[in-house]
């Protein structure tokens, strides 16, 4: 089980803030997770349509698109940050 989190407009588009999923076996990287999410329905397809605008964190640490999700408990997807 992996916990997926969505923030800001990514959350608005997926329509949910968090969900627990079983990732398919062939998934290795953040990019693979995004590709898989896009097959799960039009709201995901829409949320991840411009994947270059999406940032990710694995277990609360910023992660690149090619980072391994092998031992990830929590993966978050969000736009570039705009705080401060």
């Amino acid at each position, binding site marked *: 089980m992996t916990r997926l989190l969505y923030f800001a407009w990514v959350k608005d588009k997926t329509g949910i803030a968090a969900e627990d999923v079983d990732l398919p076996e062939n998934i290795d990287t953040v990019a693979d997770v995004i590709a898989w999410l896009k097959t799960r329905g039009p709201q995901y397809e829409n949320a991840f349509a411009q994947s270059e605008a999406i940032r990710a964190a694995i277990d*609360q640490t910023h992660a690149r698109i090619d980072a391994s999700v092998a031992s990830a408990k929590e993966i*978050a997807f*969000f736009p570039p*940050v705009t*705080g401060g």
Partner: protein
Amino acid sequence: MIRVQTGDFDIGKEIERLRADRTDIGAIVTFSGTVRDAQRDDGGAVTEMTLEHYPGMTEKELARIEEEAHTRWPLQASLIVHRVGTLRPGDNIVLVIAASAHREAAFEAASFLMDYLKTSAPNWKRESGAEGERWVDANEKDYRAATRWRED
């Protein structure tokens, strides 16, 4: 020290707390960021702003940034306070304090903390105004500002 909170902060009190009875601090730089009413790119007036954040990761990122500042500059004390929730024009959003024996380190560290916070703390601004609501776009300038601290 870092804090994420919905309530306001008092800059004077935060400085006092940080200085306590110390007499080795010579320079204190504070940065406070406030909500502007003309924040929107399209010139529309902002009436309200909501800061969403990633609880847990925000604290981790702020602590990591603060730690990095201490490895780069001889700081005697520092503080980062980030507000989340709903704010209005004139309200405080963020406070950074850096204290050192000399002013150069205090100025540079405070500036570094802000540049890094702006590009790595998982916070997102949503503005409300007469034109409706919208998520604020990331500012390319902030990302350029952060690159100047890169050590190769």
